[in-house]
């Protein structure tokens, strides 16, 4: 545990050095840039209560989705699409609810989240079925489903879901009564945070302490040993994990819709589903670690925006830092695997 923390800190330091070098290379003074970044991420109550955590929430939920799938040995690259259909389903529920006013707000909110969960699960279910029935590589099928989800959203926000004036390609704005409750007065911090924390703790506990969570980990660790030594029904465990993963990504979309964007539009997700892979990996696929990694990514992105605003550094520089983090984690793992092999026996 301590070793993982130390290692992650070292990786962060290396990523930070990468950032400094990149800043120097592009002619930006690192000092002011980094201090703008730090204050944008942590330096104010707005940063601490809104900018950083609000950015972290969708990454945490989608990161959990990726972590669960990868733990079961499923390469679900489809969190992006599952998140999009989840958000879309929530927007559909919202449209129906706004068309018939008078429904209890809480009921509608729960229905939106449930619809997102279900839609994400079903969307992943397509890939799960294709894998189980036809042996289709889930890497390819989930990428296809991401692209299809993207076109689906594009169609809906110009068609059935488009706002009444039909000027902008987006859904009508969610009425305030149906927003996810704000946790701290005056901030943008919404109840999705509690959901993310709750689900992360639940997922952590489930994987660790229940028989079904253990089966999932065993299948991911060595499917043939799980089948042979544990007589585990591997296809069933895989399907269950895939659906769960999709459901988590779906709820991430529903939460982002009802807590942040309040509308559905084409570029609803700036690649949350792909950044979620980075988050999950940095967290070593540990659900609690996902919370921390998502917060780190949220802070990086909040800080990057402040850096652009206050120091004129392009905010996309943060993607380089995130990519460097993934590559460093991968390199460290491969290095450990290699040295581990050579020291054994």
């Amino acid at each position: 545990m301590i070793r993982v923390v130390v290692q992650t800190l070292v990786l962060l330091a290396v990523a930070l050095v990468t950032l400094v070098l990149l800043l120097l290379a592009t002619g930006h003074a690192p000092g002011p840039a980094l201090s703008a970044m730090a204050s944008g991420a942590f330096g104010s109550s707005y940063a601490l209560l809104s900018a950083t955590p609000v950015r972290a929430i969708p990454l945490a939920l989608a990161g959990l989705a990726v972590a669960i799938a990868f733990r079961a040995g499923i390469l679900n690259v489809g969190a992006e699409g599952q998140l999009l259909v989840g958000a879309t389903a929530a927007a559909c529920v919202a449209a129906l609810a706004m068309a018939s006013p008078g429904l209890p707000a809480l009921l509608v909110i729960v229905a939106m989240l449930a619809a997102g969960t279900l839609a994400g699960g079903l969307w992943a279910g397509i890939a799960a079925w294709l894998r189980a029935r036809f042996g289709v590589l889930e890497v390819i099928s989930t990428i296809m489903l991401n692209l299809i989800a993207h076109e689906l959203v594009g169609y809906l926000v110009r068609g059935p879901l488009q706002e009444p004036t039909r000027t902008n390609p987006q859904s009508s704005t969610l009425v305030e009564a149906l927003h996810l409750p704000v946790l701290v007065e005056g901030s943008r911090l919404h109840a999705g945070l509690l959901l993310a924390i709750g689900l992360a703790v639940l997922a952590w506990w489930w994987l660790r302490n229940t028989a079904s969570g253990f089966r999932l980990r065993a299948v991911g660790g060595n499917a043939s040993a799980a089948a042979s030594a544990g007589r585990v029904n591997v296809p069933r465990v895989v399907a269950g994990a895939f659906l769960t993963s999709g459901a988590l990504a779906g709820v991430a979309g529903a939460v982002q819709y009802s807590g942040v964007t309040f509308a559905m539009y084409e570029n609803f997700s700036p690649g949350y589903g792909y950044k979620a892979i980075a988050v999950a990996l940095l967290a070593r696929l540990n659900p609690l670690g996902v919370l921390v990694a998502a917060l780190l990514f949220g802070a990086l992105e909040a800080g990057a925006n402040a850096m652009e605003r206050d120091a004129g550094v392009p905010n996309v520089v943060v993607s380089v830092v995130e990519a460097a983090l993934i590559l460093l984690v991968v390199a460290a793992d491969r290095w450990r695997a290699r040295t581990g092999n050579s020291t054994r026996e």
Partner: protein
Amino acid sequence: MSDALTLGTDFLEASVRFATPLALASLGECVSERAGVINIGLEGAIICGALGATVAAGAVGVGFGFAAGALAGVAIAALFALFTVWMRADQIITGTAITLLAAGLTGTLYRSTFGVSGVALSTPTIGATAVPGLSAIPLLGASLFEQPVVTYLVYALGPLITWWMFRTHAGLGLRAVGERPQAAIAAGVSPRLTQTFAVLFAGAMAGLAGATLVLAQAGTFVEEMSSGRGFIAIAIVVLGRWHPMGVLAASLLFGAAQSLDTVFQSMGWREVPYQLFLAIPYLMTLLVLAFASARARAPAALGQRELTEK
């Protein structure tokens, strides 16, 4: 009548135009996947190629722009190869990182050099070159043979890669590596060198695709201008059943789907849900994946990390 003809020509011309960068990237990905490496970092190689082309074309000239685009693609692919081929890291995770890295790098460099979303930068472009004779064919001539030269490169590369893949021993070795690396090793073919070559080639092709977007189409660099083409290329390779000529046909289909928008607009059909047409090729891809015969399946060792069986 002549309206319909014009529309047909326009539609075909647009389809080929949209298809050209897709075909470049997909042909590269096809070679890479045939060697067992699935590169979802292609998106990153395309955007790197686009920026490389922009810079070099502005500074030196259009021809250098294409070369620089290809080189930029090779550079980012080299990083991918280092991780996946030599360190045997997971291809999907590395590809994700590469895409993220390329988006960040190009965005940072572009904005730092040319200003934050600043003055629209315009580069020289290559115009269409009519192929004497062929371009006079009604309907097809104007659409297929009055295109930028890169399009003709695509026409040439399809058959050329097919020939190389199926009519040379090196191509045989490439396919063996993607199917069963141990068999390749036993026959004296090095999977690592083969895969490295394939990944770098795919990088060069993706870089060319990015250069095409800038130098033959947009005339400028826009962040995120690759807009998912790297992922679409993966779909095209599947729909093209991992065969270069199939990949060409599938590229044209995807290009056609993308150009429907223009057709609908010129016809004044604003209500047609063209996004649904855009989704059709992906659905076809999924169907191909599910129901393809054994011959059209993915290379058996695609995405495999280890080169040896237990």
